[in-house]
């Protein structure tokens, strides 16, 4: 049996006085996410072939792919529905989806939680739909 000591943590506790606090002052101090972090999903319209495997595999029905022209697809991602599992990234055969390190996605306005990736038109300019 070990010796019983009251105030066992006292040395540890006192040494913390000269140490910097372990807390990261988050909103003031930003920190980087590791490269394979599963954050906000990015869509590359030019790579999409419209197989809709991502739509089928999405656990929360956050993705919609619509055909807007010949071999042109548009993607809408509902950030409020997305659970950031990045299954769509794995499912995509053409690597048209990619997860980014972006994670600060809270919004007061519900409308801003809908992200639409427009397909590029022939001349390379984004078309407003």
């Amino acid at each position: 049996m070990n010796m019983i000591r009251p105030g066992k943590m006292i040395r540890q506790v006192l040494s913390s006085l000269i140490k910097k606090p372990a807390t990261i002052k988050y909103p003031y101090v930003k920190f980087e996410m590791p490269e394979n972090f599963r954050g906000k999903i990015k869509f590359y319209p030019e790579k999409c072939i419209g197989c809709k495997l991502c739509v089928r595999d999405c656990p929360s029905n956050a993705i919609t792919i619509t055909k807007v022209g010949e071999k042109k697809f548009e993607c809408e991602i509902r950030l409020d529905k997305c659970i950031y599992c990045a299954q769509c990234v794995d499912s995509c055969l053409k690597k048209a989806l990619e997860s980014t390190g972006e994670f600060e996605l809270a919004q007061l306005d519900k409308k801003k939680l809908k992200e639409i990736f427009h397909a590029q038109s022939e001349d390379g300019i984004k078309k407003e739909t």
Partner: protein
Amino acid sequence: MATALFYILIFPGFLFLAVFGLAVEFVDRKLYARLQNRVGPPWFQPLADFIKLLAKETIIPDKAEKLIFKLLPFFALTSVVATILYIPIWGTEAIFSFNGDIIIVLYLLSIPTLTFFLAGWYSKSLFSMIGAIRALTQFFAYEVPLFIVVLSPALLAGTWSLSKMAEFYNQHPGYWLFNLIGFGVAVIVLLGKLEKVPFDIPEAETEIVAGSFTEYSGMLLAFFRLAIDIETVVCAALLAAVFLPFGLGLSPILGFSLFIIKVLFIVALISLLRTVFARLRIDQMVNFCWKYIAPISFLQLLINIILGAVLVK
């Protein structure tokens, strides 16, 4: 009359104590955080909390005794504010003093605990009632050792007045070192009086929500919390006056700074102690007080009786 009002309301009465009390709460919280390797609150946090609570709705339970429920925070507040008038802050002179004021001070300091009991009891809520009973049980466990250790230095000085005591220790520098055992006991007992870990049994958050204060909200809770802050200051001031009576002959400004330092030292000691312990159970606490604390305080009493016979004669 005007000077008396000044003493009671401004300095060293209510206003000074409120400001100092909030400052002490900040020091306590900040130190507690830093000892836990956290950042801790900004300096205005206690004041902000106080103002926020003042702005909140006060809800009084239907079944509670309304008048007493409302009055109790102010009872606690006035009793602690009144106490400071008998405690020498700097120099050897308290604002009011007479032979026997040490008893008055201890008596006034036990009123807050009684108001906590009554607050819990008259809230008529189960958690409050358990908290109230625990507060009273704990009160009986620590009050006797506290009386004994505070009275032992007085015994050595041969007076029942705090001011006379200060004068005695000022004339006999170094004598306060005899009371160091008593000081240790008093700091531990203070943890019980101020309901801090390991003796925060009456308001043990994870067991009985907030004990006596479960039903309190808004302004009434704000004043209860202020009363507890002021109680911390006053208890620390009492301990400083009784156990650390050195440097009393200094000029008012230096003496006052020394007083602040003494109080902060005692508060820091309490913060450190509450960092390194787990909360005890009520039976363990009562056991601990009667088994260890009470005998040690009697030892201090014995030492002082013998010393009194040898040295002072």
